[in-house]
């Protein structure tokens, strides 16, 4: 069975709070996991000094996270995103890469349009 690193939702209605857990993939969401790697609070917290953006609080044991990834645990997408923020794994979807791909695709499209408009030398 696959071991996954995923979020387990706790908290209350309209007040989610997640444990970042290592668990068997087919076990229930909130059952006792193999290990709790940390927590993720998706509700933005105001800064105490009142300056700057609010923050979302993440608590994480990165060395244990690396260990579990090393033995083949598969992170879920939200966990992947969190882990990639602190450089534990490569981001799955990079905004920069997506932009580059878009520019490349645009250029390719333009090229193909231009080539279709230009009369080919064999025809003339």
């Amino acid at each position, binding site marked *: 069975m696959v071991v996954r690193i995923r979020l*387990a939702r*706790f*908290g*209350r209605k309209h*007040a989610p*709070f997640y*444990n*970042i857990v290592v668990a068997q993939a087919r076990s229930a969401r909130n059952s*006792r*996991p193999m*290990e*709790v*790697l*940390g*927590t993720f*609070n998706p*509700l*933005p*917290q*105001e800064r*105490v*000094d009142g300056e*700057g*953006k*609010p*923050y*979302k*609080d*993440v*608590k*994480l*044991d*990165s060395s*244990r996270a690396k260990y579990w990834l090393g033995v083949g645990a598969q992170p879920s997408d939200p966990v992947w995103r*969190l882990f990639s*923020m*602190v450089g534990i794994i490569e981001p799955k979807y990079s*905004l920069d890469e997506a932009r580059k791909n878009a520019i490349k695709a645009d250029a390719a499209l333009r090229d193909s349009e231009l080539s279709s408009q230009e009369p080919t030398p064999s025809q003339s």
Partner: protein
Amino acid sequence: MPPRIRVSSVHPATPCTTPQARPPFQHRPSPSARPFSQTSCQSTRLRKDLHEWLNGPGAAFRDPLPGSTNYLGAYGKDGRLLRAKAPNKKPKESSDPEASDGLENAEEKGEAELAPPSLEDLSPFPLNRQFRSQSVLSEALREEIWRQVVHEGKSIRAVSSKMGVTLERVGAVVRLKTIEKQWAESYSKAVLAMLPQTPLKLQDQPLHESINDLPVHPATRKQLFYPTSESRRFTREDAGRAFDPDLLPADDLIPHPEMIQNVKERNLPKEQQIALKKMRAEAEIRAKEDKEAQRGKWEKENVKVVQVEGAKADFRFTAIKVEDAGKNGRDAKGTGWRYGVPFDDRKRGQLKVPNGGTAQESGQHARMPVQYGIRMGQSSHWNALEGVTAASSGARASA
């Protein structure tokens, strides 16, 4: 079936029939409530005395003096206010414009010449003159305590010694004020108006209670004969040790040891006092800087803030250790929601009084149930630290 009444037994012109309107407490024969009674109208002496008192001296209690208790002890036998007899030349206790609330103002206007109630007036039971009604904290004083702890970030110990209120009571005021803020202010109107209160004064705050009482250590409850040689100097510390090896001397046991220190210093020469003050201020600043440096170091190692492009919030990553949760994963030092432990925050009868952490914390996470059940790992300490330093830096900026 009509009631069987013998006509001859009903007196046609007795005063026993109930008149529709009569003044309150008017002395009337007792059987008037039973118009068909066959016994003759009679009233006991006690009953007559009662009504005499209600209409005579007791009439003063019908309308209580505003801002004063309505105790029997404050009035004489003839129903006159005792303290009105000997007018006090001193101004009223509510002479501070800031300290007096609306109630006291009204009192000032109406009965400006009336002296404040003395201890004698605070005995509700005339036959037990030893019993004195203890005053409660006034609304203004409680508000000030809450403000100093929560907004100014002062320590509970400092506020306690300044206001003359015990440490436990200050803690309770802060906790209950947090809840009271969510309620209507009905309590102060309904209950406080009837009780003696400790007012808030800007200078020379009167003591609410004795704040430096020694807690009784269980080891000292029994008598002890401890033989010791006469040549030996047997101090209080030795006496404590004789009772229990862990028993501290009284100077260290009391809630406010710094007050003893203050009195000792007051007897020192002026130059020494100034030098001491300067030294203490420097030490305080150094301690604050040390604390800040330590926090900065810890933060550098353990906290990483990631800014995500286009997101409304940053992500703050704090390093924790999985091992802190212990072998069964339930240790209080661990992080995250605990497994296999009931979380009764929504259970009936669970009062949500924040009983841990600092006031800043409880205000900050008011919407989250986190503080009641989830372990916050190391960061809870960190948050508390952050709140305190932020408050203190604000105070410094304003100074």
